[in-house]
């Protein structure tokens, strides 16, 4: 292939980076909805707690999607990092210091460090086997938390901590419902901005290359394992932050937040919304939380309806709701 043939595609790639204004519309739309949620949620019969739940679960799902959608690594143990972050945040408030930011930070770092340490074992495997090892990691931590009664409260979960008001120089901000929503939104915005920047960086492009053609990446002398380890660690960090926010949202954390079924739910949120779209996991989390909330108030068998939704999505809409919408727009 001559240099001339290469030029047009290279310049079109550059043009793609400098987007037209209407490419930003969806993002503006998403942020407007998120910023105003506490105002209109009650009108639709929802409540702020529900909106915060969406944000927190969406954050974990977006972190997971860095593995699932971006690098194509099928991770099924994300709940472990989510739950461990939550426990770390709770223990921080109970034993260390009554500070919300510190609790969030320690929750995030705990999961990040654990992901960084376990990563090298996991990234040697691919596909189904990567999924299995991540499941197994998740289970190991689940049993540690359940059996370490004196520290974690065992099956009853960890109680007795409360989210603390934020202190600035002269101001004290209490974290009741709406304020806590905006704190979660602030964290969510940081995470979303970080992921967006990451995806546009060379590192982000290399992540996609693992998914598309790992062998070619290795011909370039790039170690896919190292890249996967970085993605694994970042997604652990994000899950830890989400888990901390979740623990503080409920002022409670229990082993069920580490259970493999929650890992499956996170994966499902990504697929449901569309794992190749930036906002897919957020949409998936929103649909999941609203469906769970609505179904469980109508029927005791809401789990089977959720299962049915999962099956239908897998069979008929594997690209998720956003993938479907995008196909419609193009057609």
């Amino acid at each position: 292939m001559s240099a001339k043939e290469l030029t047009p595609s290279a310049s079109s790639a550059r043009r793609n980076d400098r987007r037209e204004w209407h490419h930003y519309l969806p993002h503006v739309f998403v942020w407007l909805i998120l910023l105003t949620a506490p105002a209109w949620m009650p009108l639709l019969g929802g409540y702020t707690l529900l909106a915060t739940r969406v944000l927190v679960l969406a954050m974990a799902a977006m972190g997971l999607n860095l593995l699932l959608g971006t690098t194509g690594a099928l991770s099924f143990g994300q709940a472990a990092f989510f739950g461990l972050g939550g426990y770390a945040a709770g223990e921080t408030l109970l034993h260390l210091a009554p500070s919300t930011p510190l609790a969030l930070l320690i929750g995030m770092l705990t999961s990040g460090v654990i992901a960084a340490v376990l990563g090298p074992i996991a990234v040697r495997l691919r596909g189904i086997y990567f999924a299995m090892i991540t499941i197994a990691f998740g289970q190991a931590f689940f049993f540690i938390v359940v059996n370490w009664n004196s520290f974690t409260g065992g099956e009853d979960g960890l109680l007795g901590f409360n989210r603390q008001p934020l202190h600035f120089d002269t101001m004290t901000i209490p974290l009741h419902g709406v304020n806590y929503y905006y704190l979660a939104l602030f964290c969510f915005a940081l995470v979303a901005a970080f992921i967006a920047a990451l995806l546009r960086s060379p590192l982000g492009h290399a992540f996609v290359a693992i998914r598309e053609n790992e062998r070619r990446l290795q011909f370039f002398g790039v170690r896919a394992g190292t890249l996967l380890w970085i993605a694994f660690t970042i997604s652990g960090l994000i899950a830890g932050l989400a888990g901390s926010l979740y623990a503080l949202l409920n002022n409670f954390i229990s082993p069920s937040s580490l259970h493999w079924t929650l890992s499956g739910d996170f994966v499902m949120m990504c697929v449901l919304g569309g794992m190749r779209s930036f906002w897919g996991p957020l949409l998936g989390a929103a649909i999941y939380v609203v469906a769970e909330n609505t179904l469980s108030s109508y029927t005791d068998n809401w789990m089977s309806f959720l299962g049915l939704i999962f099956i239908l999505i897998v069979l008929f809409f594997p690209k998720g709701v956003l993938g479907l919408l995008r196909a419609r727009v193009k057609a």
Partner: protein
Amino acid sequence: MELLLFNVLNGLLLGVFYALMAMGLSLILGLNRIINFAHGGFLALAGYIAYSLLPYLGFFGVLIVAPLLTAVLGVLVERLLIKRLYGRDPLFSLLLTFGLVLIMEDMIRTIWGAQGLPLQIPAVLQSALSQTYFFITGYRVLILGIAVALTIGLLLFLRFTKIGLRILAGASDLDTISALGVNIHLLRAVSFAAGIFLAGVAGVLAAGWQGLSPQMGDSLIMPSFVAIIVGGVGSLLGSLLGGLLIGVASGVTSAFYPQASQLVIYLIMALVLAIRPRGLLGKKGVFE
């Protein structure tokens, strides 16, 4: 000493269930390339079918009929749902069967109720065989015997029947045997049915041992995945070995430090993977 022996035997029994499930999972993973999360659901279903048929067929009757019926249901699920996933990202098989688990548990709860039920086993099997080692009952010997017979039967079936050999060949290269004119639809259905049948037998035996509950498969499915990894993916004997190994390890641990009896399974896995990433009997290049 007696306590240790008791726990080793208990662990061995647990390992038998892990191994039966792991071999079924491994079979389905090998040829169908499906991660069957619903395996535990099928196991529970077999137990409950056995419960309902027990008054008509007796224990030994349901031990054969319930797994067969469950395998038939398994083939239905395979033909209706699973077959649409062949050749697609394994992610989708994981998710579809994950959804299936939710439905199956609810279904069992609706039909048979949420509370635990006992499965009556013949009185002959319940009595202790020995006064010194009170824990050796006829039922435990039966479980071990059936597991041994099933394993040998499965291996003979795979090595010495035409369809068995094709399943083995298909697990390593499905495209080639398809090009040679083998009916791979039939092959996949048989392999799926065989896997579910093994889960079904484990379900009936487990129900007689520890009773029935809608989530009875949940505590077995994860260790079975671990058994496959420890034993080496792609190796049936490896799954058997892995299952027995983690079962016994779990049993021995509960003699000394019961809190860690579940955790030790995952520690063993991490250890094995650190030393041999392909598992104890795994072959290089299988399923990468």
